[in-house]
């Protein structure tokens, strides 16, 4: 979708349609980053993920809109349903990106270009959102067709054919390849690979020796090879449950960092309980404010037994944190639980009343589900370091 959040806002409010707008963190506090900028704002040089104050310096009459994540999620589900009227093979990739396998729909709706046109028209007329469509024979090529070509076409559709890669995809810089970030780009530049074509022509053995399985994946991507099917149930099996939080300021002391750690453990366990799962591997990570000069850690440990009890998880998280934290300021913290198993069977203990703990957690979850996450809080969350109250007003770190 083109500038998804901004497009949703423009569709919902006609007065914004001819104005440069950004959807950004918190306009009242003048803080946060730009989540989405409309094409008019982009014409002023405003880019996604830049600080709001920088965007406002570039465009003085920029309209800043507070994010409404619930509406964006709802709109994304509506668009999925529109896609499902063209094919049953729809795989959501992110809130504004989806893969469709239309192989079985060609007889009914026409060739891929015609289907793309019909989809664009329906999405536009029914939601007011412009979508960009990349067409190809597999998922990675379709994704690159969309990111590198369709977005630049005024009509928003591009068909990237595998037998034309040498003329279309290969001349592009290597960082335009799906899966290559800034760090990988530096590695490739160091070995003299500057374009996707140069990477495609390398021997896969060289890449495997240097970067293992990821090297092979990148080589296959550069050559347009991808065997993964479009699977509507790809997210049905949960492998891990994690929460990550960027803090409003640097946290310096263990005491205040642990407040956030506890809140994250609570959130992870609440979600695990709602899905009736327990996890036996805990991961904890922290990062400093300067994301370029990386400080911090991301470590994991195996728990004694699978759990979804917040205090058990918190005790283990504290152990990991104390072992690996090097007393540097922390700006972002993450906790995740993996190796998930069903929670219907668990080991009873002579020393703990686990059924009682579970009943208590279930009661608290029930209250939170009915009255919101801030309805029951731990007392530490009322401290200055606590983020739970603020977080209860958000989805994925952005306002509901």
């Amino acid at each position, binding site marked *: 979708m083109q500038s998804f959040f901004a497009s949703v806002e423009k569709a919902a409010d006609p007065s914004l349609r001819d104005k440069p707008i950004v959807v950004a963190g918190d306009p009242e506090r003048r803080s946060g980053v730009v989540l989405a900028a409309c094409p008019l704002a982009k014409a002023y040089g405003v880019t996604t993920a830049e600080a709001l104050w920088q965007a406002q310096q570039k465009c003085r009459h920029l309209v800043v809109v507070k994010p409404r994540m619930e509406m964006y999620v709802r709109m994304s589900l509506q668009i999925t349903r529109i896609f499902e009227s063209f094919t049953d093979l729809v795989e959501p990739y992110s809130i504004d990106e989806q893969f469709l396998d239309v192989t079985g729909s060609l007889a009914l709706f026409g060739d891929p270009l015609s289907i793309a046109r019909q989809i664009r028209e329906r999405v536009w*007329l*029914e939601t007011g959102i412009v979508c960009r469509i990349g067409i190809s024979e597999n998922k990675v090529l379709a994704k690159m067709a969309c990111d590198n070509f369709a977005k630049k076409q005024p009509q928003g559709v591009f068909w990237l054919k595998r037998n034309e890669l040498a003329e279309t995809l290969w001349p592009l810089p290597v960082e335009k390849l799906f899966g290559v970030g800034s760090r990988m780009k530096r590695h490739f530049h160091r070995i003299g690979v500057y374009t996707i074509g140069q990477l495609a022509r390398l021997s896969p053995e060289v890449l495997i020796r240097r970067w293992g399985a990821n090297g092979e994946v990148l080589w296959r991507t550069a050559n347009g090879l991808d065997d993964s099917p479009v699977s509507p149930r790809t997210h049905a099996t949960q492998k891990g449950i994690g929460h990550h939080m960027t803090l409003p300021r640097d946290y310096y002391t263990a005491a205040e960092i642990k407040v956030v750690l506890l809140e994250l453990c609570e959130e992870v366990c609440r979600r695990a309980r709602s899905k009736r799962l327990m996890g036996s591997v805990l991961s904890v990570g922290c990062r400093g404010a300067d994301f370029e000069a990386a400080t911090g850690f991301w470590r994991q440990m195996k728990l004694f037994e699978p759990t979804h009890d917040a205090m058990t998880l918190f005790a283990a998280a504290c152990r990991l944190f104390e072992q690996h934290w090097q007393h540097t300021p922390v700006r972002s913290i993450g906790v995740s639980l993996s190796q998930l198993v069903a929670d219907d069977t668990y080991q009873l203990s002579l020393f703990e009343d686990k059924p009682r703990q579970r009943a208590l957690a279930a009661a608290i979850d029930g209250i939170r589900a009915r009255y919101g996450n801030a309805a029951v809080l731990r007392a530490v969350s009322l401290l200055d370091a606590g983020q739970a109250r603020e977080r209860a007003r958000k989805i994925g770190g952005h306002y509901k």
Partner: protein
Amino acid sequence: MNRQGDWPQATVGSGQHAADSTEDDRVGEQPESWQKTLQECVVFGVLFKALMADLSALKKLPLKLSYHLLFEELSRWAEQRHHQLRRRLREQGCILVNSERLDQFYRIELKYGGYLQEALYSIELVRAECEQQIRIWLMQRGGKSW
């Protein structure tokens, strides 16, 4: 739909391959596609219903002035447009079977080309389009008296 600034055209092309396709292929580029008529029909249908609901609410209020005439004229206009669009839709081969408001969107069930199809309109978009139509109507009325 109002199209100002970067607000894009409802009609769509086919990317770099637009030139390869025939005129008839360009569904969105036809002067008035049935989907566009359907969207307008839904907007005017909702606008008419909303106006009637507001008008009946207004009648119960003790007001200093009467706004009924304004509401009645506006609702008459919306109803008339709705019927016109419904007729045009029938001429274009589309028959409305059912419409309902679900939690998240307006769901329209229709018959076109022998197939039963559905269209899902976002509530926010329909509301915004209704407000836009009222604005246009007020501007068109200009100095006319009620």
